[in-house]
């Protein structure tokens, strides 16, 4: 994060800590406080009561009708995590430039059961990320240096190499990664990068594979000793 924002972050971070403290008190978990990231209880959260879009939504007005609920600090953490998951690469911008954090906010704020489950995981997970980062390097995740961020993620990001005891953070990370990838590759930039060239109405017969695509699969099939039938 640029230095100019560091003071904002600290302030916002304190608010999150406060919120977490209140949650922990309510859950009777106060004894765990002050113990670094181990204090995150992954506690159940109250369900969001806002209205959904209903069974007959208006397609001319497709904005999600529910209020957004993430705090600034949570958004900062989400944004920095998303950008490490899919770092900017040449023509392809970082997720934060494509509205991915805002999408995560819309997602965890939605009044539906699947999204509620994700909300518990993600809001707790983001708090965990900041507290763990603080406990290790004194800085919240977004302000930690790249090496520290990666050292932390390496313990939770690989299915077969999760550090014992960090199963819950790993579950959070995996879900966050899915949401980030889903949000990213559904944008026009994501389509271009992945190579999705559909959603284009055409006339006449469906053209089928390009000569290049057909030649490629023919070579694959024949390479396996199987018979190729032209489409």
């Amino acid at each position, binding site marked *: 994060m640029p230095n100019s924002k560091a003071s904002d972050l600290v302030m916002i971070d304190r608010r999150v800590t406060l919120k977490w403290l209140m949650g922990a008190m309510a859950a009777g978990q106060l004894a765990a406080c002050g113990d670094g990231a181990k204090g995150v209880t992954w506690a159940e959260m109250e369900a969001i009561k806002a209205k959904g*879009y209903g069974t*007959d939504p208006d397609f001319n007005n497709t904005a*999600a009708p529910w209020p957004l609920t993430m705090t600034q600090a949570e958004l900062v953490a989400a944004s920095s995590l998303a950008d*490490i998951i899919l770092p900017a690469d040449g023509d392809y911008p970082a997720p934060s430039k494509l509205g991915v954090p805002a999408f995560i906010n819309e997602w965890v704020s*939605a009044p539906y059961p699947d999204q509620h489950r994700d909300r518990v995981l993600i809001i707790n997970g983001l708090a965990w990320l900041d507290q763990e980062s603080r406990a290790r390097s004194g800085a919240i995740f977004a302000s930690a240096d790249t090496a520290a961020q990666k050292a932390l993620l390496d313990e939770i990001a690989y299915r077969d190499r999760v550090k014992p005891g960090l199963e819950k953070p790993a579950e959070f990370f995996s879900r966050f990664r899915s949401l980030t990838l889903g949000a990213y590759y*559904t944008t026009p930039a994501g389509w271009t990068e992945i*190579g*999705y*060239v559909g959603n284009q109405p055409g006339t006449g017969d469906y053209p089928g594979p390009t000569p290049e695509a057909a030649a490629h699969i023919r070579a694959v099939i024949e390479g396996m000793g*199987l018979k190729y039938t032209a489409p």
Partner: protein
Amino acid sequence: MTPDEPHDAVVVGSGAGGAMAAWVLTRAGASVLMLEAGRDYSPDESPMLNMAMDAPLRGVGTPDKRFGYYDATVDGGWDMPGEPYTMAEGSEFMWWRSRMLGGRTNHWARNSFRMGPYDFKPRTRDGLGVDWPVTYDDMAPWYDKTEKLVGVYGSNDGLENHPNSGPGVLHTPPKFRVWETFLKAGGDAINIPVVAARRAILTKQIDERSPCYWASACGRGCSIGAAFQTTTSLIPWAKATGKLTIATGAMVYEVMLDATGKATGVRYIDKATGSHKEAKGRVVVVAASTGETARILLNSKPNGRSEGLANSSGQVGRNLMDTVGSNISAYFPQLEGRPRYNEDGAMGLHAYIPFWDYKRIQNGEVDTPRGYHVEIGGSFGDPGMGVGSGLDGYGSSLRADVKRRYGSRIGFTQRGEMIPNANSYCSIDTETKDKFGIPVLKFNFAWSDHELKQVKHFQTSMKELIDKLGGTLVSEPDEPAKAISKGGEIIHEVGTCRMGSDARESVTNQFGKTWDVDNLYLTDGSVFASKAHKNPTITIMALAMRSADNIATRLRTGEL
């Protein structure tokens, strides 16, 4: 005409069965009142080319819209507020309703496989279930007429129990995509057929409807008319005769009889005002969908008869069947990183795997009596929220993995035949009423060993095919009892008022006419005597066309 005036025919429901009956009857000159519980709907509302990105939650399904934000279903789904159904202890059943003009035809997948000669005479072949009162040969001309009217793409491959259509009936199917060609190569090597699918989609212009333009998921509805739905075809055509009156928001709850036992019409609740109304006609046609048709009959208690209407056989609500469903999916390293091109095509199936193992069943070499087909899905599709599934790690290697993996996964979906059994039926739950005060349905459902063994056959065969093509399973399939779909989940429920040739064992004759009431007809999936693995809707429509033709003749001759 207005809904208050007596019509020649009262038709309940505007889906596949109701709209076909209404079209045939209006064309024959009869005046028809169509009563539809849902709201008026036009596919012009369809958000055809909208991006997932512009929908809340990237368009994923929610309790408000189970099949996604852009799905055509309005006011429907597995659960409808204020309109519950219940289940007997130990039974699980899922009931999909789409309460709108056109019903579930607005978003069905359009897969349209004719039943074959074996499918109409299953009991004759293996002693299980019952035979239909019609043969395939009786039905063949009606399939041809229906397919021609509806517009179905596919090819005539002359396969056992997968009949060809008549000359000039089918539209040319779209070309196979790369992954379908790949599957065919594997199938050819181990004698599992991969052939053109049949779907109710136009690939050439035949009337005011346009051919497929190769974009936009058909489940959103097809405003250009290429994917068949009654709201772009049968309903506007019936309206154009000047003989059709439609009342939407009309929730029918019983059929009325006169003293001689003839139906005089139906009673319904006008949802806008809450008032109870009567609709009168010389003939009553009920096509409110398999579950709802049984519900209306069971809730009609002429002269206090507790068993309900047209139920002297005791078969109303019985013999409830759904399609057997289960899934396997696999990654194919050979499909990784292949050259990009537009694979949207007709969005759904271009190819499928028809059932191929009839000979071994006949010879007793296979322990499951009935077949299935396999619907396959792959493609460089519109990347959705699942694009990252199965991936690991983070950083630039993750970016590379997303691209490498894209388009290399194929899903295999079993669609199999269920044999009717005594534990699967619906009845009226006398304790529970919906928000209109109408008693609701209670479902009992159980698969039998036949279906579980069929799941095993599917799993074994698909693993062989995947293996041949060097694929790796996304996950090892569960045991059949866990892998099999829930009753109703495949949304092919049929059979609650089966047709037959014996009034003691069936509810209707071969024309959907109830044995007990001479001017009461059923033209939806409720009349199915068996549930072949073929998706039911093209058969619902072919039967409805044939039954409505019978009604039209009887109206003309004054018999009705």
